[in-house]
């Protein structure tokens, strides 16, 4: 697998050199972009040869069934809950997947990015009441850990969480944690997929797991495989599933592949790469 240029890795990130809000005269040379951006961004340039090695992908979901052959080893598994005084509790998850969905997402990511690290953050299972708070706490914990990618096949409709979720997704964006979130296909307001700091994903009906399209009519930004997807499920099962929540891990895996090859990309640059490699833009090249 092609590795990033070590000289690039040693460069300091621009935000460590100066305040972020200005560029004093004569310092433009200090913000050279540590990516050799090609004249034409192709899929081969973007992720050719990458296995996702070195990229940490967090599955924020129902837990992950560790022993499933389609998932393989996962690096960490925690469960998030709230205590009696709403204090956040993050502990080792000994229950595994309570539903099957997290295992399905992990399996999809693993199938496309076989060498990425997978971390399961279970935010389901403690009851519906308080689940919005647990979701927020889980996402905050994931952002604090600095994971490279967070797969979120979930959303909330509670407006009281919108502001704080927005802040959290912006924080992730600036810290280079890429949030990939399922879009909602029902006529309700929900978050965080609608925020521009995340990558939002809807479904197309094709069977190619690497086929994805840029949507020129947002808020949904990308369409990925989400219909009749064969996935891993609890109890070692394989089942076929449909839903945006299965399209999302396809995009998360693609992000892992691109970051495996170009770890220095910011979420903005990464989105640009995804745009340029979408099938309806230039991805056929």
């Amino acid at each position, binding site marked *: 697998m092609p590795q990033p240029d070590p000289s690039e890795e040693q460069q300091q990130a621009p935000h460590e050199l100066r305040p972020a809000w200005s560029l004093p005269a004569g310092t433009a040379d200090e913000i050279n972009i540590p990516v050799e951006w090609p004249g034409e961004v192709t899929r081969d340039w973007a992720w050719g040869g990458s296995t996702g090695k070195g990229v940490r992908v967090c599955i924020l979901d129902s837990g992950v069934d560790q022993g499933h052959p389609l998932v393989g080893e996962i690096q960490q598994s925690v469960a998030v809950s709230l205590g009696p005084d709403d204090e956040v509790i993050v502990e080792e998850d000994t229950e595994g997947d309570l539903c099957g969905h997290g295992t399905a997402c992990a399996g999809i990511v693993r199938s496309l990015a076989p060498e990425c690290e997978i971390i399961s953050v279970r935010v*389901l*299972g403690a009851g519906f009441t308080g689940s919005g708070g647990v979701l927020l706490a889980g996402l905050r914990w994931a952002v604090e850990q600095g994971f490279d990618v967070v797969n979120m*096949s979930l959303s909330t409709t509670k407006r009281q969480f919108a502001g704080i979720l927005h802040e959290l997704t912006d924080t992730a964006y600036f810290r280079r944690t890429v949030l990939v979130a*399922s879009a909602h296909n029902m006529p309700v307001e*929900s978050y965080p997929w609608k925020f521009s700091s995340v990558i939002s994903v809807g479904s197309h009906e094709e069977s190619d797991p690497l086929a994805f399209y840029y949507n020129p009519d947002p808020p949904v930004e990308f369409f990925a495989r989400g219909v*009749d997807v064969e996935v891993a499920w609890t109890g070692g099962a394989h089942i076929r599933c449909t*839903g945006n929540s299965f399209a999302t891990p396809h995009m998360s895996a693609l992000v892992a592949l691109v970051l495996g090859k170009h770890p220095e990309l910011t979420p903005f640059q990464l989105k640009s790469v995804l745009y340029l490699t979408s099938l309806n833009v230039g991805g056929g090249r």
Partner: protein
Amino acid sequence: MSEDLKAAVAAGVVGSEETFRSLLESVAEVARAIFGAKASSIFLLDEETDELVFEAIAGFGADTLLGQRFPSSTGIAGWVLVTRQPLVIEDVTEDPRFAKDFAEETGYVPKGLMAAPLLYEERALGVLEVLDRPQRSQFSLVEMDLLGLFANQAAIALDLLRRTRRAEAVLAASGGGADVVARLATTVENLEDERREDGIKLLAAIDDVLRREEGG
């Protein structure tokens, strides 16, 4: 709550539960029929106990499952409720846990299910499930949209049912014969033409007399 308001609320809720429940059952039945499925269920979230309750069922399980409860955040229905995401699952061959909310109660393990959250404004009220629709070569996103439309309808019906129950509870707790007032209001409402006018006049006269006596 003032007596006038109580009477107005009572008039609104008497008999409504039955109507809204019928509406819910109708949504479940139409969803089952449109998809050609074996069964369709609508679950209501009981916020007090944090459980999902079988509120309407069409097809398999209709006789036995109504009113059955299970925890709100486990199984497929729980996942759909908490995440607000619809999903479709097919070809289950190895793991009956995937629909344990249904399977544990009936011994019937569906091979596939469609599930959508019932969302009304910013609230998640419950879940619509459609079990064992005929498996075609490929599921289509048009069907997913259709499921969303049914879910939307079911959510509205569920919201009406929930409001009715809350109003009934308030009335029951307030006592004071509000149920009698409600029955009277409903009876007058159901009268036609002249008899209705007469009824309203009579009630207005009673109201007048009672107020005068109250005033001394």
